């Protein structure tokens, strides 16, 4: 399946997604994170189109570990769990997403960071 | 509603679908059932390919200092995928998949601890062997230089 990859800046992410996302056209797949090393992390928001063959769009933004990431829950209510998973796994901070989906609330481990 | 009740009643007199497994051993296995891995050490050429291919690492080779190798297979760790048989250069002779059902281990067999000891010993033997080889190589090189 070919992916259309759109590279955006994290600050523009919410505006971009607001103009792009229409609940009746796009199916929200998931939020994904990939640790790039050197304190950088790539965040991805992935969508697919209803009723069309092989159309997947991936928005990607590169950010630092410490940056506070805005949440897309106000736009896509079903993103809550995916965001909490990213918070648990990478130790990044996403607005309104609490730690403790898989790990303990006060756990200090970040399993999917490549340095750890 | 009545139909369902009738069926429930008739089901009462039908034969049971389950088997009392450990006491009644008449489980019919299909042909080519994937069972235990069997091997013949005489035919093995000790190439380690099965060890590298095994996903749960249930075949582990021990390296003796004289260069010979010894291996053990853990039937309780094995997932019966058959990767080792596909990787084997002599399939059917040195390594093959039988249709035998794996038996459950008892407490007396102490399979876990025994296996952990073996795994540690094997890893250590490899390291020792590698170190020995390296030292020998170094010695040879020094002799050449001098």
């Amino acid at each position, binding site marked *: *399946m070919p*992916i259309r990859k759109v590279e955006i800046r994290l600050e523009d992410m919410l505006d971009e997604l607001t103009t792009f996302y229409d*609940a*009746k056209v796009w*199916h*929200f*797949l*998931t939020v*994904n994170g*990939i*640790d790039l090393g050197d304190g950088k992390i790539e965040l*991805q928001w*992935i969508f*697919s*189109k*209803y*009723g*069309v*063959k*092989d159309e*997947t769009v*991936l928005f990607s933004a590169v950010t630092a570990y410490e940056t506070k990431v805005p949440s897309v829950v106000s736009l*896509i*209510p*079903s993103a*809550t*769990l*995916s965001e909490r998973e990213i918070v648990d*796994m990478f130790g990044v901070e996403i607005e309104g997403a609490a730690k*403790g*989906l*898989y*790990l303990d609330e006060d756990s200090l481990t970040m*399993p*999917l960071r490549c340095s750890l | *509603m009545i*139909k*369902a009740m009738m*069926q*429930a009643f008739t*089901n009462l007199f039908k034969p049971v*679908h389950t088997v009392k497994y450990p006491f009644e051993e008449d489980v019919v296995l*299909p*042909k*080519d*059932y*994937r069972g235990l891995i069997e091997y013949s050490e005489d035919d093995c050429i000790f190439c380690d390919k099965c060890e590298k*291919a095994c*996903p749960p690492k249930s075949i582990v080779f021990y390296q003796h200092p004289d260069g010979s190798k010894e291996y053990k297979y853990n039937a309780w760790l094995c*997932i*019966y*995928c*058959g*990767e080792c048989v596909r990787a084997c250069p002599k399939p059917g002779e040195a390594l093959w998949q039988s249709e035998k059902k794996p038996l459950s281990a008892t407490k007396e067999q102490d399979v876990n601890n025994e296996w952990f000891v073996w795994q540690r010993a094997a890893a250590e033997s490899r390291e020792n062997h590698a170190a020995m080889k390296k030292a020998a190589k170094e010695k040879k090189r020094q002799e050449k230089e001098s």
Partner: protein
Amino acid sequence: MKKVVNIPLGSQHISLLEPIRFQFTTENEKIIEVGADVGFVHRGIEKACSETFEWKKVGYVVARVCGLCAITHSLSYTLAVERLLGYEANERIKYLRMLMVELDRIHSHMLCLAHVSENAGFEAMFMQIMADRELVMDIQEAISGNRVQFDYIAIGGVNRDVTPELVNMIHKNLDELRPKIDDLMERFSNNWSLSLKYKGVGVLTLDEAYIYNALGPLARASGLKTDVRAESSDFPYEDVGYEMIFESSGDIYARNMVRLREIINSITMCENIIDNLPTGEIIEKVKGKPEGEVVVRVEAPRGELFYLVKGSRKNFLDRVRIKTPTFSAIPAMMEVFKGSEYADAPAILASFDPCMSCTAK
């Protein structure tokens, strides 16, 4: 006087087989607020895939995410890696893979229907469906050689071929199963405990389905026409008689009907596949190491399964992202609970067919 009461459901509950906890806030008997805790069986499979196991072995690891849809997990991973290696399977391999996925769908849906009838207090029906389900399990065992964890799909093909005796056995068992499903269909639409009781309970409207990104049978029961089988060109589903099945009412009854009709459609597809198996090799050598980033979607019994695999020509992959159907259906589930009676909660939950082992991976 209105009184607000907090009632937990799970993580251990008599009507639940899976470790999930819902925290209901109820007003008298009506649920007004729902909280969910899903991470009880987290095993760190995503980490294991990129750090402990080499890419050739990961297919066997991801199959262990879930016992019921093991085949879809290993299939999605294998498709992803094959695409990274620039390999495309031949028609025979595609057909054999499709056959296993459809058989998987039949027995998974039957398990769900059994649980639904059990939660209606219909224990006899539960026993009967589980006994009939053995017909499909036997086929799968005969094809793959294993009963639950099939380990059937390998990178570059499938591990075992279908023999003429097997074809006969598949035909025999499926012929036996079809009238039983027709019978079940009648039971589920006419029996009082299974139809009237379930009509209008646990409704997910079409708009809610869009907003909360419902998927799989849950979405199709609300009339949202989404199915990865129709939305991806990995498999020639149109050639084997696939049709999308959907209802419009979105209640438990509609979800049961969608599942029953999908079983019948899957049986038809399996028969077509078996009758029209193309010739060719069943496994081919694939060379190289995975490089790049790829996305794969496969329709699992519970909905869409999503894999993102990223590799950089090393023995270990950079990232394997698994998104399982139940994980993304949980927001929709929570929405359905709101406004329904507390006593209905176990039945509604069973009708979602949740798989916690998938969710927490």
